[in-house]
């Protein structure tokens, strides 16, 4: 009886250890999430300053009859300066420079984009919410302290006084930052977006899938169903398993040496990135696919062979369709891993400053993780929240892909 009590209390202790382990890991996950969300949520809003904009034809040298091309090429810098002067009258030159700094440097682009959409507004006045500079944005969001000596601040006393005046007039407001989801990278945090990196990663993943999935499937079907086991297949098997454990930067080196160096594919393009990620994902797909081929009961193969199907018909009509859920699950999990891989992208140059959103797999691009890495290296406080927001987006994509993998397995799984 005594020994039974001992055994029962041992079980209770074991359960307590387990509970503690689970609670500890949950705690760390929560801390991580809290840190990312509290830092990153700021990236989804941006501060704007309301201003009266008069599209003075004298400054932009176009009129209502101008072509779109002319509207696009016109110089908006002088117009932007004029807007600042009109809204802050009686500034001396030094004050003007300080006030101009409160607005984004890309102010002129904002004016141009508006005019391209509304060419009839030439010669008219409108009220517009002009994006504030990142430093002002950080002050408004409370990320930069106001109560430190002026020399330690990026926003000086004069700018603060102007800001307070604008705030009291109700001209300072926060809007949802669509730019983060629609624009490419930028030197200025307030106009930097993640879309270029998302598209870069998307093209890379499409290449990765179209390269690795068919090759992985064919290789696994051949190894599992057709080839006679022997020394050679043993060696291949060991090598595939080893490849799955090779650090991703080695695949990056392979891409740099082979694809770029020997074959001569261009540097920093999603095509090369996708191929490298494909090399990396291939062993994962082969292992998952072989496991799921092996899980198809031999009785199904016998049933097909017994009605006179050839080996190939047996495999293609019955075995592959039945193994596909497992193969697809493995593929998606492998691709999710590839999406988060940074090292291979660094090796093949997909870590450069790219403003343009790539239009295809042969345009220079960054990927999501390398964009996050780039932003994390930037000094401006504004990029810190972009980094965390980028991580949030990356995690979101990973969660979506892994959920899809689970759903596919549940939906297509065959009940025997």
């Amino acid at each position, binding site marked *: 009886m005594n020994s039974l009590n001992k055994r029962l209390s041992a079980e209770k202790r074991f359960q307590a250890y387990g509970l503690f382990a689970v609670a500890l890991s949950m705690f760390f996950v929560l801390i991580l999430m809290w840190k990312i969300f509290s830092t990153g949520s700021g990236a989804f809003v941006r501060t704007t300053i309301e201003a009266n904009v008069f599209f003075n034809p004298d400054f932009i040298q176009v009129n209502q009859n101008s072509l779109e091309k002319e509207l696009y090429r016109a110089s908006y810098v002088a117009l932007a300066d004029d807007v600042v002067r009109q809204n802050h009258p009686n500034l001396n030159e030094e004050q003007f420079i300080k006030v101009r700094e409160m607005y984004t440097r890309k102010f002129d682009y904002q004016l141009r984009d508006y005019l391209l959409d509304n060419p009839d507004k030439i010669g008219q006045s409108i009220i517009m919410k002009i994006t504030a500079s990142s430093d002002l944005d950080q002050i408004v969001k409370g990320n930069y302290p106001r109560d430190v000596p002026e020399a330690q601040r990026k926003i000086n006393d004069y700018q603060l006084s102007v800001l307070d005046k604008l705030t009291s007039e109700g001209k300072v407001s926060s809007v949802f930052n669509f730019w983060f989801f629609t624009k490419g990278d930028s030197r200025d945090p307030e106009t930097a977006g993640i879309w270029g990196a998302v598209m870069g990663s998307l093209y890379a993943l499409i290449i990765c899938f179209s390269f690795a999935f068919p090759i992985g499937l064919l290789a696994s079907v051949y190894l599992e169903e057709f080839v006679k086991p022997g020394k050679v297949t043993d060696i291949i098997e060991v090598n595939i398993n080893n490849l799955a454990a090779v650090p991703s930067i080695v695949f990056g080196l392979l891409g740099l040496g082979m694809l770029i160096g020997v074959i001569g594919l261009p540097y920093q393009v999603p095509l090369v990135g996708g191929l490298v990620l494909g090399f990396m994902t291939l062993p994962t797909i082969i292992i998952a696919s072989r496991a799921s081929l092996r899980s198809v009961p031999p009785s199904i193969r016998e049933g*097909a062979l017994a009605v006179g199907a050839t080996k190939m018909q047996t495999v293609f*009509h019955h075995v592959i369709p039945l193994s596909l859920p497992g193969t697809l699950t493995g593929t998606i999990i492998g691709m999710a891993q590839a999406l988060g891989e940074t090292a291979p992208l660094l090796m093949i140059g997909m870590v450069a400053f790219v403003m343009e959103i790539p239009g295809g797999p042969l345009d220079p691009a960054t990927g999501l993780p390398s964009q996050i890495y780039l932003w994390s290296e930037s000094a401006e406080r504004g990029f810190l929240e972009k980094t965390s927001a980028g991580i949030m987006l990356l995690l979101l994509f990973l969660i979506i892909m892994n959920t899809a993998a689970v759903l596919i397995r549940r939906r297509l799984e065959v009940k025997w």
Partner: protein
Amino acid sequence: MVEQVNSFAIKTKNVSVHYGNKMAIDDVTINFTKNDVTSLIGPSGCGKSTFLRCLNRMNDVIDSCKVQGEFLLNGVTDIYGDSIQVETLREKIGMVFQKPNPFPKSIFENVAYGPKIHGLASTQSELNDIVMESLNRAGLYEEVKDRMDDIATGLSGGQQQRLCIARAIAIRPEIILMDEPCSALDPIATARIEELINELKENYTIIIVTHSMSQASRISQRTAFFHLGKLIEHGDTSKIFTKPDKEQTNDYITGRFG
């Protein structure tokens, strides 16, 4: 018993089978008469299933398996010869397995698969007819006619096995091999299958491996007793079960060993 050469569905002579170095069948000579049910009985591991699977070359997929001896289909075609392809052979010699193994597809697809790959139906309505007729012969049509598109693995065990029989006869074989077709079924489903085997022997030669001696005596006209890879005795079922020639056979059927 004098019989014509062509009254044998399959003739075998001096058959030996090895798995690697292990002998599974040792010099077996046996002929299977047409439109009879022949039972292969014997203790576990006696080689009766191995022998059955040699008849439609299902052992081909096992690399270590070596088959020697003569196998003649209808007294003329060498089963292991170059003149016949294994797919054509299996079209003539169908097989039903121990555990029901319907494809996880619709009931219709299961039966239609064989005729489709062999091109037995040129139109959809012909295919429908073949499927209907096969299910009818397997005594399953009435039970499934309203749910032909349901997945076959949702049927009961006995229904699944009858579906597998329908799948086998859909390609119009001459011979049906059955490897313990009732061992995974309950007594009622077993009775249905036995009834079905009795009906099928009008049109097909049936060779069945069974563990149940009562089943062998109920359904078969001929019985062959295997022990340790050797064919001990082969003859009319009534004789084997009442007055066997060999003492070993007598010991087995009276339950003294095995």
